[in-house]
């Protein structure tokens, strides 16, 4: 069975999806022949470009990569990648990807989703994927609005959002996608933005390298229905003040002049000025394997435009990354153990069952 051979090779490490050197790809090889049809200026363009840029670095054969999406503007993404792809139904990409990855552990599976797709209609599948820790990569394009249906508020839209369906302002409290992911036992949780392509590409690479469900939230600007939603973080002027880039083993420093930092008073984070009273040594050093700290970081989530007092900068980078057994690997192991335990399958014995009798 050709298919089984391929899976077996992968499991034995003999195939492993490595590509011959001659077949080295460029970003262009990952661009499909389809015209890209997002609105001009949409944040999705940069994300697509970085995905195509990062693919050659993964060292995978093109045919072993699959992009699966649900519904929404972001969900068009697979059509533009010259890999295998499926544009599925609203919210269900994590479930489809689970079935694919569990049955085909040799494939590199990427889920493309948005805030409506993953946190509204598909929220159940999203949290279940994270808890199972299926070895797939999930890129959540968060634009805090429903773009494809033309401008209703989304589950990440701040309270009071004026949208087509909420002319008097939205009432429901938004999800904090990273806190939700950690709460759902996510083992890899990271954030990037469309307007910092270099960092975005780096995060995509980390997403790929991590074994388990890698959840990368990407702040993505919807130029038509929610332009500027993340401007404070993306604008060159305000970005240094409002964001903090996390680096493993590095202290939490931010500000245009690198003059601010975050320290921990017990378990209580506080923003401090690095001008005498506190120095770098006093600051919180980022450790992406520390779940308590990851939870604290995920809570740096005040809405800057309406904040009061000293606000925390929004963290970008890998908040949390630990190794936890992957569901798909465990399935494979259990199936193999069953084979060892129960021996060569004998269909005739199975059909015969425990007791038979003869009629003459």
């Amino acid at each position, binding site marked *: 069975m050709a298919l089984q051979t391929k899976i077996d090779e992968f499991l034995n490490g003999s195939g492993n999806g490595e590509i011959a050197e001659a077949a080295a790809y460029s970003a262009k090889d990952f661009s499909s022949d389809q015209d890209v049809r997002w609105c001009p200026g949409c944040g999705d363009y940069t994300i697509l470009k970085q995905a195509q840029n990062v693919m050659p670095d993964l060292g995978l054969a093109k045919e072993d990569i699959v992009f699966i999406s649900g519904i929404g503007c972001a969900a068009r993404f*697979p059509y533009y990648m*010259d890999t295998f792809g499926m*544009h599925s139904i609203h919210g269900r990409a994590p479930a489809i990807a689970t079935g694919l990855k*569990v*049955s085909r552990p040799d494939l590199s599976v990427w889920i493309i989703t948005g805030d409506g797709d993953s946190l509204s209609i598909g929220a159940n599948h999203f949290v279940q994927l994270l808890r199972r820790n299926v070895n797939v990569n999930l890129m959540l394009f968060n634009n805090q609005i429903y773009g494809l249906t033309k401008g209703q508020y989304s589950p990440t839209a701040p309270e009071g959002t004026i949208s087509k369906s909420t002319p008097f302002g939205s009432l429901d409290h938004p999800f904090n996608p990273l806190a939700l992911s950690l709460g759902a036992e996510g083992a890899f949780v990271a954030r990037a933005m469309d307007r910092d392509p270099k960092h975005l590409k780096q995060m995509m690479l980390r997403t790929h390298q991590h074994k388990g469900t890698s959840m990368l939230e990407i702040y993505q600007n919807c130029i038509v229905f929610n332009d500027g939603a993340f401007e404070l973080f993306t604008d060159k002027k305000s970005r240094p003040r409002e964001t903090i880039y996390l680096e493993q083993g590095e202290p939490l420093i931010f500000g245009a002049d690198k003059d601010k930092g975050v320290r921990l008073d017990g378990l209580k984070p506080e923003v401090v000025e690095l001008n005498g009273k506190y120095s770098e040594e006093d600051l919180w050093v980022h450790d992406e394997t520390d779940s308590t700290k990851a939870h604290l970081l995920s809570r740096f989530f005040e809405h800057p435009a309406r904040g009061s007092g000293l606000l925390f900068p929004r963290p970008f980078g890998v908040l949390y990354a630990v190794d936890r057994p992957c569901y798909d690997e465990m399935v494979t192991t259990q199936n193999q153990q069953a084979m060892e335990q129960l021996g060569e399958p004998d269909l005739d014995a199975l059909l015969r069952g425990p007791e*038979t009798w003869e*009629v003459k």
Partner: protein
Amino acid sequence: MSIKDQEREEVTIRFAGDSGDGMQLTGLLFTNTTALLGNDLRTLPEFPAEIRAPAGTVPGVSSFQLHFGSKEIMTPGDDCDVLVAMNSAALKANLALLRKGGVIIVNTAGFDKKNLNLAKYDENPLENNSLADYTVFEVDVTKFTKESLKGMDLSYKDEERSKNMFVLGLLYWMYNRPLDSTIDFLEGKFAKKPTIAEANIKVLKAGYHFGETAEVFTSRFTIKEAALEPGTYRSTVGNDATVLGLVAAARQSNLPLFLGSYPITPASDVLHGLSKYKHFGITTFQAEDEIAAVSSAIGAAFGGSLGVTSSSGPGVVLKGEAIGLAVMLELPLVVLNIQRAGPSTGMPTKIEQSDLMQAVYGRNGESPVAIVAPRSPADCFDMAFEACRISLEHMIPVMYLSDGYLANGSEPWKYPQTSDLKKIDVRFEQPRNGEDEPFLPYLRDDRHVRTWAIPGTAGIEHRVGGLEKEDGTGNISYEAENHQKMVKLRKAKRDKIADFIPLQDVDQGNEKGEIAILGWGSTYGAIRTAVFALRKEGHDVSHIHLRYISPFPRNLETLLNNFEHVIVPELNDGQLVRLIRDQYLIPARAINKIKGSPFGVEELKQEILRTIETETLA
């Protein structure tokens, strides 16, 4: 007192007790022994939806009916000849199902004040002459069980639990059955608890000897072997046969099988069953919900596995959108619907075949799928296999409509050998390099079927999705002519399956005549038996039973037109009958029962006669 040995052609026994009394096991063990003796048989278990409804109450009654005989047995029997009632509630719930003059064996310990109150009896039916129409044997099963276990130092609970074995032993004596198969079973089941095994066997033998020595019973019965077709048989229930059909299809298609499922009555046993056979290359995934269950199966199918999802009506509703996706993607997908009474949550443990319309039409847009339906517990094997074959060879979702009656009912099965099974022809797209023609995912063969192009195959990278696609390329297309063409193509592909399924046969009776009784699914046995009786009485009636429903067999229209009248009995409010009228413009008549239970043979016979009368007078 001498004991008379009498021969019987057929007997129906109903075991009834509290859901904690072990009546299902008692019934199954009696069934196995009876099957090994070569009788033909059918069984029907009935249990409450609640795991343990309040003990001693009518809603808590669990029962198991077994119909066996030396002649052909096709149904679990209408009225029973023997009713075993372990308590007052069991008697109350089942007395109406006992024929006048039938035998009641009661456990008198279940007729104390407390039990009578729980069953809401004002007075003890054993004492007020209300059972004068029946032969009642009063046995203090509880007392005898405890006595036979004296000195064994068992807990109260363990003693209580073995009392069903006393009844089983007693019935084995009454019907001349050997104990060995049951003793083997008990020794195996309690291999790690030899004391419990010993206790159960002791009680079983005590029950048997009680029959012999108590001088209560005046008759013993012998039921000779049935004239079954020669061969080797086993016993099976429908859900197990379904599981085996899937395993066999995976084997014959040389594919790994992936089942995505969410527990639901009465389909869960398919998930349970398949999860035991991982060494056959089977992966089972208990998903977070029905939608994830079907979606994961679609994901696996995209990757080249035999993707299967199992559920019942309320779950299949939730899967609708994803099934539509599989229609659009033109991927194989097997959807098992073990139907139950609806709508909504309905009656989970009750029998109905009311999801046929759902299977045919229950999705948005023009969304044709293939549909098959097994007609008996053993036929679940064949039709589950066929569902997989059609799905894989025609790249289309297939709905498999079983129901609670088939799922839990059992019959002797002349099981096949692997060598008897068809090979399933799976065509994967082959790798390509730069010099080859560009790959077109929606190119079709003469059956309108596209190839299965799975990830990991070099040179055929492509995208599929739920948006309408251009014929050939599979690119998104909203173009008017293309949409109409694709809708027609998907339907033509489904209809073309008719060339690859058997022609419709006439199960009984002439190919041409006055009346055709057209059935589908689990009503087979009842219709067959009723038609047999009607023909014996001289009526010109034929029985046609569908196993392939979408598409219909090619000759069905001609066949039905050979009859003056077509009558369609169904356990719903008229679903197949509407499909027949719609497709063939035949004025088919309906017979409908929607009571959560199967047709009784006599009941169906009378209904058919009544319908014939109106038809021929009309």
